[in-house]
């Protein structure tokens, strides 16, 4: 892009799209910004959907990233309840479902991801839900009754968070998971075991290494049938088996994709006028040797928004953060920094228990990630170390008498 950018169009009014619009203004962009969003709500946060919004503690307004009026004040045009249906890269326009063409100089794709469907008979019965949008949660809440039996298919973060909330609301909860342990794709066996134990103590039952074969019921769901022939009785079912990047528009427009819309470190796609950020995008992460990662997190949505805004404004890029994430279950706050894939050593700081502990992941002597349970200092400390490219001796971490702050202060650069 050599000419000045005067019109930015953003497809997707989720956390990444909303942040990008706000960051453009905050960075001094004075041109037109149009955000096209399929959902009726202005940009909102999804993390509370499986936490305080599901429990009923938060109302819908609290989910919103900004007050509704804030966008008009910033002269940002939100076109909500409108879907983008095509991108014309030659004409630099985006078509919307009401047949309009909106011209852009720079386009940001922030289309997020969608819940993966469960390919079994009965998955469309009333009482079978997924948990991706505020509307999904509103629908689930209408079915929640004390003592109702909830079957959660998929023991990822969202499924387990929902299980914890449901127990708090007095439901009976059974979790069905195809892998031999919960959270198998996102953490180590040690941390999985800790969460399995806690949920079991809270009264959640688990069917592990178990695959759902069908969902049965006459007019609404009554049970989930498993491949081994057994059945789990259920009044409602939550399917939480992961998400798929929403990249149909990008593919139709001929952009490079591979498990996400591929971008460079500045979030630019294979078309220099088009950027992709958030759950739909896959970019190199510098702390891991530029490995291409498609991250599904608030951190990634916000960082992508900052990067795209900086690239469009030709401003200096933001300081990068090590990937981070959190999950709330019961009174446990799990905070994760870094990417644990490919670790060859796990170092525990503290014994897994309600008082909190942290699992540090190393590849060789490089600290690559931490799972910290009720241990914010270990989380923030490890995050700083990863960002600085520093590491610490395993034994130091195991010594609980040394505060994390001190360990971080004495860290050494990677050899």
């Amino acid at each position, binding site marked *: 892009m050599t000419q000045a950018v005067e019109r930015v169009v953003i497809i997707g009014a989720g956390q990444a799209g909303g942040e990008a619009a*706000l960051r453009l203004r*905050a960075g001094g962009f004075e041109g037109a910004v149009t955000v096209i969003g399929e959902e009726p709500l202005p940009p909102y*946060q999804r*993390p*509370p959907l499986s*936490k305080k919004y599901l429990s009923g503690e938060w109302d819908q307004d*609290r989910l*919103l*990233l*900004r*007050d509704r009026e*804030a966008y008009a*004040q*910033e002269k940002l045009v939100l076109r909500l309840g409108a879907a983008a249906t095509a991108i014309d890269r030659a004409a630099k326009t985006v078509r919307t479902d009401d047949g309009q063409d909106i011209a852009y100089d720079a386009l940001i794709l922030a289309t997020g991801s969608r819940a993966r469907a469960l390919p079994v008979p009965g998955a469309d019965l009333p009482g079978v839900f997924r948990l991706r949008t505020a509307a999904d949660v509103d629908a689930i809440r209408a079915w929640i009754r004390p003592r109702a039996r909830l079957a959660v298919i998929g023991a990822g973060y969202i499924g387990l968070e929902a299980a914890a909330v449901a127990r708090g609301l007095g439901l009976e909860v059974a979790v069905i998971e195809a892998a031999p342990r919960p959270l198998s794709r996102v953490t180590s066996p040690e941390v999985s075991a800790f969460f399995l134990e806690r949920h079991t103590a809270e009264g959640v039952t688990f069917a592990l290494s178990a695959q759902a074969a069908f969902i049965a019921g006459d007019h609404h769901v009554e049970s989930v049938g498993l491949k081994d022939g057994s059945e789990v009785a259920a009044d409602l079912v939550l399917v939480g088996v992961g998400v798929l990047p929403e990249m149909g528009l990008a593919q139709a427009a001929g952009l490079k994709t591979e498990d996400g819309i591929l971008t460079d470190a500045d979030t630019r796609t294979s078309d220099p006028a088009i950027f992709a950020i958030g759950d739909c995008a896959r970019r190199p992460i510098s702390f891991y040797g530029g490995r291409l990662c498609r991250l599904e997190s*608030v*951190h990634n949505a*916000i960082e992508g928004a900052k990067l795209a805004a900086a690239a469009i404004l030709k401003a200096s890029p*933001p*300081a990068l*953060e090590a990937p*981070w994430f*959190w999950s*709330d279950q019961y009174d446990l*706050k799990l*905070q994760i920094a870094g990417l644990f894939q490919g670790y060859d050593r796990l170092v525990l700081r503290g014994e897994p228990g309600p008082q909190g502990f942290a699992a540090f992941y190393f590849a060789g002597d490089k600290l690559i990630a931490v799972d910290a349970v*009720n*241990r*914010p*200092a270990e989380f*923030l*400390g490890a995050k*700083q170390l990863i960002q600085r490219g520093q590491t610490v001796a395993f034994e130091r971490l195991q010594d609980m008498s040394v505060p994390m*702050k001190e360990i*971080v202060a004495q860290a050494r650069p990677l050899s």
Partner: protein
Amino acid sequence: MPKITYIEHNGKEHTIEAAVGQTVMEGAVKHAIPGIDADCGGACACATCHVYVDPAWADKTGKPGGMEQSMLDFANDVEPTSRLSCQIKVTAELDGLVVRMPPSQH
């Protein structure tokens, strides 16, 4: 509704009315007042909602809890009245509260 004044690091003041039950963080973010990032949206998971409570108000807002203090230990430019603003609930007693923003949240 209680009034809260936020003072950006550059001295710019914003006074807004916050709803009781909201947090001091939400009062700023929902009104798009710059200076508080609040990346995690109030989950006490990010430490990017750091503020300095005006010393005259420090007794009323109280001290940080254990988790909050651990997070503050890793924040930049911490002062004696530093708090994570997502952990301060807006109450009628906080009408008139003044908080200042640190130089940066990251």
